[in-house]
């Protein structure tokens, strides 16, 4: 018995959003009489922190402290439409709607402040709860004061509302030409594994991960996505399967005792780096990290297994029996002219009737 170390690499890209029929997000914002901000959006928070990040975007755009902002995404009577929290669109589509609505609320705020100060609103600026004439910070006035005056003196309402959406681009049925995404994110994972040649057990020792997120609006939530995603990717690579006898349907696990997800026992060392390559259209340059964070580990781990023991595990998960079988079989690709053909027995041509007739095969 021996344990073998190996290293594997994977480089990926991932779309921010996937517009397949128009996918707007809408936001409306109002200020309370003391300048505190209520943001209404239909974006569900799945635990990834969209609510926190959206509030951060609103705070800086309007120019109030973060803790002045409440965000209500609780129901469809008060919250305007958001197509949904999927396709890694929350930060970009939802975030841009927040930003646009917040720009309008800021304009409404500066309008009132301009009237109070007898200054053209275009010559005003502000942040963190104060507004002042450009270049004259000594004349600053608190947002609370402005909101109070708007409410009781001027009889006005400081609000902002906006939608964000990229028009739908239908795929050409012959060529697939279309532009469904808002931005692309890139990422790389390097997996360091140890493979036991007696049991087939694979341990992931370390994951080095680099992601371009455009701009990390909230670095600790980005790290949370990276670490949580990594564990989900590790589960995909090594542990999880709804159908252990796929394509058979027997022995499905109906509980956490019989369906194995990664636990702290499998937690590898992780080192991550975040690149900030701003997206021109993203709110503060941000683009998605959400979904992509679980995509690079499975190939990196499989490639590391190959580096360690010289076998390819291309049916997931790379469970011990698969690793042991591969070690026993030591399959080599078939060479046919200039073709090098791996996994021939698994292919549609080999398994379907009539040599794959009816499918557009890769070797026609």
């Amino acid at each position, binding site marked *: 018995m021996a344990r073998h170390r190996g290293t594997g*690499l994977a*480089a990926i890209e*991932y*779309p921010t959003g996937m517009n*397949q*029929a128009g996918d707007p997000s809408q936001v409306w914002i109002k200020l309370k009489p003391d300048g505190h901000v209520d943001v209404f959006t239909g974006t569900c928070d*799945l635990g990834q922190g969209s*609510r926190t990040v959206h*509030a*951060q975007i609103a705070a*800086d755009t309007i120019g109030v402290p973060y803790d002045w902002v409440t965000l209500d*995404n609780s*129901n*469809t009577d008060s*919250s305007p439409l958001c*197509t*949904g*929290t999927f396709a890694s669109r929350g930060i970009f589509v939802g975030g841009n709607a927040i930003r646009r609505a917040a720009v309008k609320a800021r304009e409404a705020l500066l309008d009132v402040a301009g009237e109070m100060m007898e200054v053209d609103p275009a010559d005003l600026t502000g942040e963190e709860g104060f507004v002042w004439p450009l270049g004259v910070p000594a004349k600053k006035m608190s947002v609370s004061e402005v909101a109070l005056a708007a409410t009781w003196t001027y009889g006005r309402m400081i609000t902002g509302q906006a939608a964000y959406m990229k028009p739908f681009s239908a*795929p050409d*049925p012959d*060529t*697939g030409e279309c*532009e*469904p*995404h808002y*931005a692309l994110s*890139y990422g790389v994972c*390097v997996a360091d594994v140890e493979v036991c040649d007696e049991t087939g057990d694979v341990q992931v020792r370390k994951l*080095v*991960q*680099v992601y371009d997120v455009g*701009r*990390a609006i*909230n670095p600790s939530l980005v790290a949370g996505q990276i670490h949580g995603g990594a564990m989900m990717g590790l589960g*995909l690579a090594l542990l*999880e*399967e*709804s*159908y252990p006898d796929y394509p058979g*349907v027997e022995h*499905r696990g109906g*509980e956490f005792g019989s369906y194995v*997800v990664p636990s702290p026992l499998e937690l590898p060392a992780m080192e991550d780096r975040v*690149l900030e390559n701003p997206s021109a259209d993203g709110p503060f340059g941000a683009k998605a990290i959400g*979904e992509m964070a679980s995509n690079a580990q499975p*190939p*990196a781990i499989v490639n590391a297994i190959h580096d360690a023991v010289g076998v*390819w595990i*291309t*049916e997931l*998960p790379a469970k011990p029996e698969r690793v042991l079988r591969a070690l026993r079989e030591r399959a080599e690709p078939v060479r046919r002219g200039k073709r*090098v053909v*791996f996994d*021939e027995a*698994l*292919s549609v041509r080999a398994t*379907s*009737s009539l040599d794959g007739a009816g499918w*557009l095969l*890769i070797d026609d």
Partner: protein
Amino acid sequence: MKAVGASTPRYDGISAVTGRSMFVDDVRPVGLLHVKVLRSAQHSARIARLDTAAAAAMPGVRGVITAADVPRLVVGALEAQGIPGDEPLLALDEVRYLGQPIVAVAAETEAAARAAVAAIDIELQPREPFLDIRLALDPDQPRITPEGNRFHYEKHVERRVRRGDVERAFEQADVIVQGVYRPAAIEHAPVETQAAVAIPEPDGRITIHSTTQALYYSMSIVAEHLKVPLGRLKFVGGQVGGGFGGKVDTPCESVAALLALRTGRPVKYAFTREEEMLCSSVRAAWHIEIADAVTSDGWILGRRTLTLHDAGAYSRLSPYGTNKHTFHMGGAYTIPNVAFNSYVVWTNRVPSSSMRGFGVTSASFAIETHMERIASVLGMDSWELRLRNATRTGDISPTGVRLPDPSAVATLRGAADAAGVRLEGAYGAMTDARGPGEHIPEHLLPAIARLQVGA
């Protein structure tokens, strides 16, 4: 301090880990009824007999619904994209997967609902299930629908992506590397199972507390099933105990709402853990074949792919996920000549649907494992092969999008640095923008020429 760029704590972090956050399961209105569902015990069967009279007469039972009680039985998940639905809310005359809902019962207690479900008189005539997507066209295999086992896109059966001259690329190649990649179906496994509480309001509206990831999307699905305007409904949610794509499905809300209307009482329908694991949608299993036309010095001239997506018994969001998959089969690389073909195939298993990375997780696995095989066949360094073919600023994606700001090179170089890997020669100095003196191989010239004329 500015908010953007600060590691502000998650607004509900403390309340979540101390058990004080409120989820759908915490909604407990007075007079709440509980739903249990009769599910198919067969992978595929005709419903020969169904009689709910005895169940409806059981103690504590307040409402029983079948397919006949649903105003609009079949609502498609992708109707907004012009894709008609194929899945009934409750099975009508056949079942296509083990666990498919057939009858829903609302009763005073979970135990009473469970007892009533057990008392339903049903006869299923089992049929041979169809399970291996690769055999979808085999004449001796069962057919899921009269039209066959494959979903049809708008013009072709498959989703196609075409670019450049793939035949010429394969003629020019020194080596063609082929492989097959089969990532498994997996569970979303959220801590919070799918759940809905529907409350009939005095004004005739229905409030629905939902675990959905998409309040308005799910509300529109329920409005269609009930044939009511959106104003009749109020969805409450926004805080989800783990979604990962599984809670785009709306499996509980319409059933709870129909039973609330029927009984005039608040109704809760929550999946047990077993239902969550066995009856809710999964990440699909995929079958992906790749053939890459490669030069001996590591340029990828062209790529052909064949993908089969195991949609399970009904389409749900699979045509969307398979689109996304196909659009991204080029990976983080510029391959100017491609022919990608992807099929959505139905089987007699629980429908698959969206899950984190929908369509692209499988693409990334296949592409990146294949890249490593190419490196091994050519005897080339893993990093250099990827850097050589990496998408660069201004390159065109397989679907024809000019990419203004790729960071394939920057992320690779960052990872090499973090992993202590020294990139040799020109690779150590590469940037995402192609340098003026940088070698551009002949196969990329047409694509770059198109770019320069702004095409």
